[in-house]
């Protein structure tokens, strides 16, 4: 699992590369717990290279969801593989989180 950050103005793009399982979700939790992340208005998660997400990985996003919502920070997933999207959908997270098809769409939603 590789997690990389890219900053564009008030947007932070987090790229997930690999499998988000119980051990790598700790890294993700650290990245999302960084106080600095609250200074951005948008968090874009690039899921293009995310091959698998475990319940622990989902749990990390879920645990931070409320916090970002309260701080009015938008959390947007894009480029998600069908397999991973299916996991989100089964759990019902597609209705709670914003999942869009590509980067452009993500940027337009983020700018609204």
């Amino acid at each position, binding site marked *: 699992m590789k997690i990389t950050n890219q900053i564009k103005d008030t947007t932070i793009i987090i790229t997930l590369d690999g499998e988000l399982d*119980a051990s790598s979700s700790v890294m993700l*939790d650290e990245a999302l717990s960084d106080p600095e992340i609250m200074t951005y208005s948008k968090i874009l998660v690039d899921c293009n290279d995310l091959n698998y997400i475990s*319940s*622990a990985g*989902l*749990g*990390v996003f*879920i*645990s931070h*969801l*409320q916090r970002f919502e309260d701080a009015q920070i938008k959390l947007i997933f894009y480029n998600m593989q069908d*397999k991973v999207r299916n*996991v989100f959908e*089964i*759990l*019902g*997270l597609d*209705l*709670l989180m914003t999942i869009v098809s590509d980067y452009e769409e993500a940027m337009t939603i983020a700018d609204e």
Partner: protein
Amino acid sequence: MLYRTNAKSLFITSALISWSLLLANVLLAAESMHRESSHALELPFVNNFLIVVFIISVFGFQRMSADNLKGIDFIGYLWNIFAKGGIAAYLSVALYMVYRMVTNYSSVQSPLLLHMVYQVNFGLLVLFLAKAFYVWRQLILYHKNKFIQIAWDWYEILLFATLMLTLLNFNYSSLIFLPLLGLIGLYTLFLCTNLKWVAYLTFNKKGRSLILLMAILLACFIFADFFNDFADSPLLVIDYSDVGFLLLAMFFVALYTLAAFLVALFSLPTSSVFEQKSEDLLNFQRLSQSIQQGQSEKQVYDMLFESTVKAADASAAWLEIFRGEKKDGIELCHQLTIEEEQIKRIRHLLLAYNIQHIDYINNNLDRNPGFRDLTLPWKSLIILPIKSKKHLFGVLYLLKDIEQGFDRETVNVLRTFTNQTILTIENLRLVHESLQNERYKEELKIASLVQDSLIPKKFPSDSWFEIATHAKAAKEVGGDFYDFLQLSESRIAIIIGDVSGKGISAAFHMAQMKGIFHGLMQQDMPPSEFMKQANNALSRCLEKTSFITSALYIIDYRMKGFMFARAGHCHTLYYNSMMDDTFYFQTDGLGLGIIRDKSYNNHVREMYYDYNPTDVMVIYTDGIVEARSPTNDEYGEDRLRYMLTQTYHLEAEDIKCAIINDLEDFTGPTENIYDDQTLLVIKFKPTQPSE
């Protein structure tokens, strides 16, 4: 044992008889010589035969009793010779003195008495020689090799062969036998170089053994002198110095005693070195064996401290042990002739030099101004940290009151000690850890048993539906669960769930969920209402990153339908026999514990479905569809659905087995599955329940 006892008593008897006969014969001859003034001894061959029998009997007896001597109590061996053999010499001297006193006092020459004394002394001599001969044999053969064993055996045979000369009444001192005697002498000399046992004596023991050896030598001298005096004496009818065997045996015993004496004497100065080495070795052994003997770390440190102080002959020392991870957790656990005040000062100085935890040797403290200012009574210092690659266990400080106190040899020994200690301590900790792990495993086993009891093994068997279940946890305890509750005669509630994560915490939440299920369903509520209330209940106790997916089905066979709600759980697979079609129920529903307020109520849907007889419902957890093949493909919903289209006509149990077999084919033979797997197959039956 019986044989040995018998042989011993046989030897004693034959020795006594032969000696008595010999005595009688000699006295008889002396009497006749006295009367007829003739020097001829009657029946010399009989006499010689008796001598040989006596010698063989005594030697044979001693050979057998010498076998009892075992072990490395060499002083005991020497004492054995002295007490049982050497005393004989002093007895013979005493006897001779008494004889002289008696003859002087009465001024009567009594050849009979003289012969008697001579004869008794002969017996004592043989006793002494036999004893010494066989004790020396034990010592020569100490740490023996094959060569020495053979050499000795031949020597013994050769020596006893010389008895033949006596038997045949040859004079051994004749010229023909001289070279032979010379050769035997050399042979004896060679055997006398086997003195390994002397090296094992400590300084004190060497001192004691020197005294004993001297006493034995003296005994040899007394006998030799006595029999030499009487050699070719005109007063006697018999001369035992003619017996070559005795001469050779005496030569051997005396030579070996002398050799042992000299070697012990000259090895006295070096014995302390040998002692130290053997003690070091013993201490190494003790250190390395301390694990098997179940000793604690403290005992290991005790051993290290004792051994190093002795090995280095240190005049002062202390040992610091670090407890815990913190730097300040230093414990002064050993102190030898040094004040705490002095330790504090030295430590302070070392801290200033920044060398407190590294290997450090200073063989001339006076040359260092810092140490000179401390005005310590010591001149050499060595610091030995006890540390592995990862861990610093402690530091050992040794001080000596002389310069150049720690030479390379000593330092090597000390380092070996500390290295061995590190190994021992680390092994001790490993053993301790593995014991701890063993206990955790035991407890996990219990947890696993408890959890197993939480999952129902038997569903109510009824004529209107059949059910088959499969459950396999990835670890000892898992997060998957299912359960049922008979709501009324015609209605049954079935729940399946999956707690995020695995292991103990998941197992706890699973138990919680089971409690919630049983508690809430007592009130018989619709599935969606159950999900709302369950979410509410879980919101308060589930940790932030955990959530639970679940699905609840309430089957009503009177209505021939079921109601269900899905909370983020895997879609239900269904086979409809009327339409001959398999599909997944696509309903919305958010997992439990994701939204922890009332807004969750908008995220759960309820569905009602009428079933037909022979319809099949497959309920499962994500461990099934997300199971991986060796090539990292997922089993997937499609393959599961395909399996159902192939097997729906079978009974529930067979459908389940078919799916599990296919799944195991897919994943291949693995011991550890990636996630918990749970599968329930429900088949509705056409027959109506009996009235």
